[in-house]
């Protein structure tokens, strides 16, 4: 479709865009040179503001110099694809994940922290997902449990959801699971630390559409625990999920 635009014009446009991203002095015909920096400043400002509001913990953790360094590296090197700017922070997270940055050696849990902060934004904003039709009361073992479909479970190496990031060290390394979900009425995002068993259970319950009794049989094998003990351990957890509205009830 690009039949009318000449290479010359395209090049001038590319140079201006490249300058805004990298700061390398532009060679553009007819440019007012002492003004063009405003474009780079404005773009940097928009990106920085958006990232600061999506990643308040990360921004607070990094020194100003470190923060600007990584934002600048992102702007220069990463080609943002999000047409809605609120989604752009997910690309920042991806950039940090895929790029060998020195800062990741200093903050070993940085990827986890960005993942956690982005997921909160994502779940808060994401399109509504229809809830299963459910009734409030039912039998935990014999009926199919309905869960709030607006959730995500993250697997993390560091407990960024449990501890102040400033206090996290290599000693905290482990296998952590966190459930993030959106409350239907308020739209607020809540999160809960999970054991590996509970994260497995939630996903089973949601995907398999079968009564808990069957899932517990499988769990007993997978985790090598007897069914009765498992149920006694699971029931308070399910009651808690119901109380904070992650479980609306049972399928009709």
């Amino acid at each position, binding site marked *: *479709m*690009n*039949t*009318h*635009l*000449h290479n*010359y*014009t*395209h090049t*001038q*446009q*590319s140079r*201006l*865009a*490249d300058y*805004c*991203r990298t700061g390398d002095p532009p060679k*553009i*015909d*007819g*440019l*007012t*040179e002492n*003004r*063009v920096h*405003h*474009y780079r400043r*404005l*773009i940097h400002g*928009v*990106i920085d503001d*958006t990232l600061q509001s999506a990643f308040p913990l990360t921004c607070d953790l990094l020194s100003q110099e470190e923060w600007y360094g990584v934002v600048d590296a992102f702007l220069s090197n*990463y*080609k*943002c*694809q*999000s*047409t*809605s*700017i*609120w989604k*752009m922070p997910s690309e920042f997270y991806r950039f940090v994940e895929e790029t060998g940055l020195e800062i990741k050696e200093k903050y070993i849990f940085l990827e986890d922290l960005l993942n956690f902060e982005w997921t909160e934004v994502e779940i*808060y*904003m*994401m*399109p*509504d*997902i229809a809830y299963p039709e459910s009734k409030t009361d039912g039998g935990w073992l014999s009926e199919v449990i309905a869960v709030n479909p*607006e959730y995500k479970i993250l697997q993390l190496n560091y407990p960024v959801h449990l501890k102040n990031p400033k206090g996290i060290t290599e000693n905290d390394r482990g296998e952590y699971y966190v459930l993030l979900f*959106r409350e239907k009425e*308020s*739209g*607020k995002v809540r999160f809960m630390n999970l054991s590996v068993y509970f994260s497995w259970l939630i996903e089973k319950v949601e995907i398999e559409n079968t009564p808990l009794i069957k899932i517990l049989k499988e769990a007993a094998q997978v985790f090598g625990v007897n069914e009765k003990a498992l149920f006694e351990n699971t029931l308070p957890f399910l009651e808690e999920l119901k109380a904070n509205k992650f479980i609306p009830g049972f399928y009709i």
Partner: protein
Amino acid sequence: MERNKHVGIGFRKDFAEEFLEGKDLTPAFLEVAPENWMEIGGYWKKVFNKIAAQYPIYTHGLSLSIGTPDELDWDFLKKVKYFLNEHNVQIYSEHLSYSKCDNAHLYDLLPIPFRWDAVKHISQRIKSVQDFLERKIAIEIVSYYTPVAAEMSEVEFISSIVKEADCNLLLDVNNIYVNAFNHNYDSKEFIEKLPLDKVEYIHMAGHEQVAPDLIIDTHGEPIIDPVYELFEFTAHKLPKTVPVLLERDFNIPELNELQYELNRLENICTKAWDYEHSLA
């Protein structure tokens, strides 16, 4: 309080309650960027649905990047179309600039080279967008701080595109004031040369002077008197009444100050349009 007749304002999340109550602010309509409201759910989707049921919604897009050398983003346009239809949106406007280049979004408005090949390229793109959306779009003359490889005048560039693409124009009166100041031309002469019969929508805003010879279009200050005067001049020149938007994105004042600006604009519209049109 009764709603304004001609003058609307940009929807802001921090005033959502006030808009729903409709007491302290009485805009005729609300403007949103589709990109900020499409494909969302949860709390803000619920609020937006209520707002859209209560006010006419006009839109001002951010990411179409009509002036880019890149291909049109059809997937994005599909989502825009869905959003416009979902909320019965009457106006879809966009910036005559580019915000994406070589496959990277920049989230700001870069100036297009005023060149003939760009006129052809952009007009073709606008036509494709209009065909796809099954509606005309209104393109906004943006403020700019430096020309880029220009071979024609700004007014010739804009007029040629509007003519060739057969689209509408969003006349941001503050942008014209800012550009006239920054690039040393006469704002009234510029406006008179525009295809005023194509103006479908007007924007009004404040700005900030950052150097003796440079104004930045910040939308962070009240509208200044010379811009009100330029608006009055423009309103008398237009062949028809059009909606007018007060843009304020930063440094948000008390609601009564915004309402004062809405009313001041409304008075100018009433004088220019309601009176003249009742004579006609």
